[in-house]
């Protein structure tokens, strides 16, 4: 893969992580307040995954 496309992909991934980290906690808050365990697991899992990708994204 060319360097420019790698950089572009990295920027897109960062944007996705940013959007996820900003929006998902509000969904998590809704799930916590309504006792929706499955939604808590999904949103919490996605937030953690986003952070993990953030570390791996050199």
């Amino acid at each position, binding site marked *: 893969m060319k360097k420019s496309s790698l950089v572009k992909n990295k920027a897109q991934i960062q944007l996705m992580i*940013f959007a996820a*980290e*900003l929006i998902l*906690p509000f969904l998590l*808050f809704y799930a*916590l307040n309504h006792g929706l365990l499955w939604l808590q697991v999904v949103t*919490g899992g996605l937030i953690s995954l986003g*952070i993990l990708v953030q*570390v791996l994204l050199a």
Partner: protein
Amino acid sequence: MPLNFLTWLLALLPVLTIIILMFAFNWGGTRAGALGWIVAVVVAVLAFGTGWRLLAYAQVKSILLSTDVLLIIWTALLLYNIANQAGAIRIIGERLPTLTSDRVMQVLLVSWLLVSFIQGMGGFGVPIAVCAPILVAMGFSPLQAVVMAALGHGWGVNFGSMATAFQALMAVTGLPAETLAPLTALFLGAASLPSGMIVAYLGTGWQGLKKGFPAIIILSLVMGVTQYFLATNNLYILATTGAAMAGMLVCLFLLRLPMYHAAPAPEHTAESSLAHPEKPRSFLVSVSAYVILVVIGFFVSLVKPVNQLLNQVRLNTQFPALSTSLGWQTPAEAGRAISIFGHPGMILLYACLISYGIYRYAGYLNSNDTKQILGKVYKSGITASLAVISMVSMATIMNHSGMINLLARGISESVSRALYPAVAPFLGVLGAFITGSNNNSNVLFGVLQMETARLLDLPIPLILAAQTAGGSLGSIMSPAKVIVGCSTVGLVGKEAGALRKIILFGLIPVALVAILSTIFALGLI
């Protein structure tokens, strides 16, 4: 949780992770902050009895805190890039040194006043990047230029960049500006004096410092008083900008005094004309973005009906009481309230929209420029935002799991009460040095300093003022900022020399803050 060396070290582990990764392995804040978050979660769950529910609520709270800071970061970046693309920064930089041929006044104008003004508007390493090349064009060596530009604006970082760092301190500690602003403004106002003296000495030697000393005293008084007035009257986002502007105005007056009166330098150097061959632009129109921001800022803050109208709609949430299995409790509380239309970030946005319209009308910007502006904002904004979110989240989790309290207990038992006010600014320096910003230093150590002050029965506003003043003065010593400055004057790979000099001289204003903090603690206890 019992306090012993092992548990204290465990509580320190997330912060230590960030320190080691950023300092020893050159990781960026975005990556290191994320790993710090993971370490905080693991330690909180395994050693501090933190459950899923507490972690989840802490994460939600941290996003509200982050949003408060992110709103300012994004809109400050937008305003800076609009003005920069329209040529405002370049024109200010070109015009200022032409006002006088007196060397010490030129030095003060560029490496103290202009650099602080840019810090007020933009920050993020931009002040050094803009002013260092101007100083090189004025005949200073690249090393001198970077060192002077860095040291001249440390006092203005806390209330600079639209007070992002100060906003972060308020967000993590939950304390209002009225409590935190007075002592912070006082410490940083005092620190502006040694900053001016140092740049005068570095630029013109002892003789220059001697000649410029009366002007430095007057200008630091003007800037310190202006900053204090703005910061304590709810205009903290304009405190550095307003102070630097007042300093520039008074400096223009000082240039008329016989001792500083010297023939103005030639208007344009050949180099600058060659570098920017486009048609001349009006100075007033170019700087209109900043004038508009100052006018809107004052208008919204000082006209009460407007202030009340804009602050009617607030985003707020209520959080339940939370506790760990080891018994550490966080009481039920409202999350950080965000005023949708009256937030400092929104005031910046209004200024962005109006100034963009003016620049487009005047022909200083076209649709191609708009793409470039948005591209630059996006590029810098995303990286900064991810670092802020992960570090704020880490700090919130550490706070809710009792780790910050344990750290604070450890410090309060090992550092004496009389000594701590002098240590507090150096902790702020350490945080800024490691993380590259006053903002991140406040996020990392803000709550820790507050808890330690509480345990030592020291005045919390005093210790937090010392923290953020230290962070402000320490942020210029961070390798990340020095690297940005060096890259603009061809010193890439030779940052160590600049860094050594900046640290050597940069610790002088920090020492002054430490002394003032101790004196105030003795008086206030």
